[in-house]
């Protein structure tokens, strides 16, 4: 009897382990949260003159050619026309930066350019200016499939993956329990998305403003009653990296609109 019970226990544990790590969504079933939205919210995202994210894109376009810092250089002085030079860039971020020997997300890359090239102070996370520049750069990748070159970032990708599958917070939840195992079902009346960051920075109706992926991650962690990682923390960037890698193949939608 004891042996049978132990065998059974072993089988249950093995099953639990495989469901905790083996449930990644196959590429054919990957969906943007756009598919779960109402007709009205989709219409808002699709029409540039109805999408409030357009304001940030226009602000970003102005900032792109505004000179800043003691170097008195604008983004455009090095990178030229963003519509050509920034095309597809956001679809491969976070990307490995050899000088810092770690992946940088798009916001961090913009701030590195500001401090090292423009000799200007870094922009604060979630500031209007940083969101606007990020939205303008990411807008140039709309429609381009996400493609992360992970070969030099394996350890960071693994760190992000283990965060995604790790139970945390007072509710003892892992990201994967909602976004791998229960996507498409409801959580308090809202559809649970797969959690692919295809449209950041995006306009969230709940926020009534544009926000970054890190803001969204911190929201999720607060919801799990876990302590959110600080803006720019390596954990947040690792999670961003894993989420973008997990969303590979999906088209960019920046600036997206989400409920």
């Amino acid at each position, binding site marked *: 009897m004891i042996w049978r019970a132990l065998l059974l226990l072993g089988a249950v544990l093995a099953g639990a382990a495989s469901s905790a790590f083996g449930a990644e969504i196959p590429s054919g079933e990957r969906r943007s949260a756009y598919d779960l939205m109402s007709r009205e919210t989709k219409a*808002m995202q699709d*029409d*540039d*003159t*109805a999408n*409030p994210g*357009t*304001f940030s894109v*226009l*602000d970003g376009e102005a900032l792109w050619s505004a000179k800043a810092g003691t170097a008195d250089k604008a983004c455009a002085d090095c990178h030229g026309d963003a519509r050509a030079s920034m095309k597809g860039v956001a679809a491969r971020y976070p990307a490995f930066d050899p000088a810092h020997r770690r992946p940088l997300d798009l916001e961090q890359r913009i701030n590195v350019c500001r401090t090292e090239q423009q000799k200007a102070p870094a922009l604060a996370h979630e500031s209007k200016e940083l969101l606007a520049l990020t939205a303008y750069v990411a807008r140039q990748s709309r429609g381009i499939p996400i493609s992360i070159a992970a070969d030099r970032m394996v350890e960071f990708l693994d760190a992000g993956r283990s965060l995604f599958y790790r139970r945390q917070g007072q509710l003892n939840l892992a990201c994967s329990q909602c976004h791998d195992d229960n996507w498409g079902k409801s959580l308090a009346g809202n559809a649970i998305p797969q959690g692919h960051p295809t449209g950041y920075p995006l306009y969230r*109706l709940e926020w*009534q*403003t544009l926000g970054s992926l890190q803001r969204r991650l911190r929201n999720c962690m607060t919801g799990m009653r876990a302590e959110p990682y600080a803006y720019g923390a390596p954990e947040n960037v690792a999670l961003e990296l894993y989420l973008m890698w997990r969303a590979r193949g999906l088209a960019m939608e920046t600036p997206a609109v989400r409920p």
Partner: protein
Amino acid sequence: MARALINVPAKAKRGEVVAIKTLISHVMESGFRYSNTGQLIPRNIITWFQCTYNGEEIFSAELHAAMAANPFITFHTVATESGKLEFTWTGDNGFSATESATITVE
């Protein structure tokens, strides 16, 4: 600086019903919220929107504190003659913004 986006068809047939869409950037601070330090954040909203078609008012609206940021107002009108549509938003703290669009009626 307030930005506004207007979507009006450039051309229409005489008598056709056309959709007009307007979106303006504005925080629409309700006046009921408190800051992190417990201070009441003063109300700052758009209170009035008006659209004129060749000088004649065709649509206007009162806006109130419960309305979301970046108000999106859309309405319809009958294209009667070629001309200019003018849009005006006014609000708290002397807020005022104007925008215009032209329509050609064939």
